[in-house]
């Protein structure tokens, strides 16, 4: 089975198009719901046959659901590692489902249904992980779509539910609503003004948590943070979303303020720093992932500050995804060594920026 991402309704990257609210600061909004199918052991403990039966049941249910009408299904357990990595780099499947961790090899029955900015992972840590992705800061929109999908699926498949504990999940940190709502946000202003520590500390006091670009266990790189609710039990979906909405709204304001302060107090230093970042991306011959992320962060800030006007946020968002190792290997049509990857990355970034370079400067 080969992977044809062009089959996806929007190539699977519609959430990158920077059309959403505050998309200069907030890249994307993602909400996921963890659900398990009654009558089977949780994925990690289930036998191969049980996982396949879960998948069969989900398949049958999905066939009648309008929001997944055009959905494409991929069986992760039938894809080579490179294709699985590609889906993971696009944020369409988790690292665990893709079986990219040495600790978690790909499981039989691991699959994903991908529709227009919604998806269903099957046989992840929980039998079902529903997710909705949106461009920019769009929690309500994302929730509306995932809530509908949840109700549609839940009326066709019996979910494990306990009257006191709510939706039951493999990990106790997800039980209750099973909901993790997260916002991928770019905070270079707060990092440069050294305000970030305070902001992150206050997040934790408010019951929120932060992670890197790829969720749990991933490093913060390029000043990209994923802010999400920490707890899932004892508060309703609406309360959890409301809290995140208010706090992230506040963080967005503080980031905007920090950017204004930077320009006002350190105008030329900042301008020089950001143009250097652009220059490096434009002309470097080899770029590691972390380097690329950090320079892209600078250029993204420059675009946000309107220092660079002809470059679109969409282009930068795409660079973020497409300059990763599996995408580069896919584009080159072969596997690459680490140094070849760095060369390919620099070449890819150079080309993309050249295309839009027209009136830059």
């Amino acid at each position, binding site marked *: 089975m080969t992977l044809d991402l062009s089959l996806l309704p929007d190539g699977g990257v519609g959430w990158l198009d920077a059309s959403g609210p505050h998309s200069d600061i907030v890249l994307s909004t993602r909400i996921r719901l963890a659900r398990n199918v009654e009558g089977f052991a*949780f994925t990690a403990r289930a036998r191969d046959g049980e996982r396949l039966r879960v998948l069969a049941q989900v398949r*049958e249910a999905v066939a009648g659901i309008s929001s997944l009408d055009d959905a494409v299904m991929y069986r992760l357990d039938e894809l080579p590692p490179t294709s699985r990595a590609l889906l993971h780099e696009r944020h369409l499947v988790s690292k665990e489902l893709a079986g990219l961790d040495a600790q978690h090899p790909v499981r039989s029955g691991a699959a994903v249904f991908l529709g227009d900015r919604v998806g269903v992972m099957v046989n992840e840590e929980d039998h079902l992980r529903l997710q909705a992705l949106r461009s920019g800061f769009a929690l309500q929109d994302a929730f509306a779509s995932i809530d509908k999908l949840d109700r549609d699926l839940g009326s066709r498949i*019996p979910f494990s539910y*306990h009257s006191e504990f709510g939706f039951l999940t*493999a990990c106790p940190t997800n*039980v209750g609503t099973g909901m993790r709502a997260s916002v991928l946000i770019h905070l270079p202003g707060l990092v440069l003004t050294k305000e970030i520590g305070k902001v992150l500390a206050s997040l934790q006091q408010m019951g929120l948590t932060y992670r890197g670009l790829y969720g749990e266990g991933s490093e913060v790189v390029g000043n990209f943070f994923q802010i999400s609710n920490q707890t899932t*039990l*004892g*508060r309703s979906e609406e309360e959890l979303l409301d809290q995140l909405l208010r706090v992230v709204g506040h963080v967005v304001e503080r980031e905007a303020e920090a950017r204004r302060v930077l320009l006002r107090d350190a105008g030329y230093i900042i301008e020089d720093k950001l143009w250097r970042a652009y220059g490096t991306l434009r002309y470097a011959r080899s770029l590691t992932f972390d380097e690329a992320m950090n320079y892209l962060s600078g250029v993204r800030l420059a675009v946000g500050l309107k220092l660079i006007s002809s470059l679109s946020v969409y282009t930068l968002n795409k660079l973020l995804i497409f300059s990763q190792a599996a995408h580069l290997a896919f584009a080159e049509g072969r596997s690459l060594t680490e140094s070849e990857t760095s060369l390919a990355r620099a070449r890819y970034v150079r080309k993309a920026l050249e295309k839009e370079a027209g009136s830059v400067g």
Partner: protein
Amino acid sequence: MVCDSCKERDAVVHLTTIENNAVNQLHLCERCAADRGVETTVAAPKHPLGEFLQEVHKQIASTSTDSARCSFCNATFSDFKATGRWGCARCYTNFEAAIRELLRRVHGNHRHVGRAYHPPMSETLERAAVLGELKERLRRAIESEQFEVAADLRDRIRVLE
């Protein structure tokens, strides 16, 4: 920086207090901070699951529920301790009392107040499950070009639908 109180040791605690709208900053060494009742040793793990597992560990030590098994998936409490994951939904009822206490520690609460859920009726479900399985087998039969098997499966699906 030297401690504001003893003026001897290095200040490691920076205490900001607000009294009558005036902000005071005190820089204290560990010992002087402790004298003023300021906690300096932070032992709490960052991730609540870590805390959770520590608790589980303690409970197991004290009540030896270690060998208790879930009647559905056969998982034990020590399986949970090792992986941080329950084996199945039934574990929640089988270890209910312990789980209630532990959820309170992780989430500060043990009661779900979000959306209530009622599973669909079982008849429709059974039919859906059988149909799903048949369709999966049909897909495989077609893939492996077992057309006779596929035709048979297709008939059975038609009857159910």
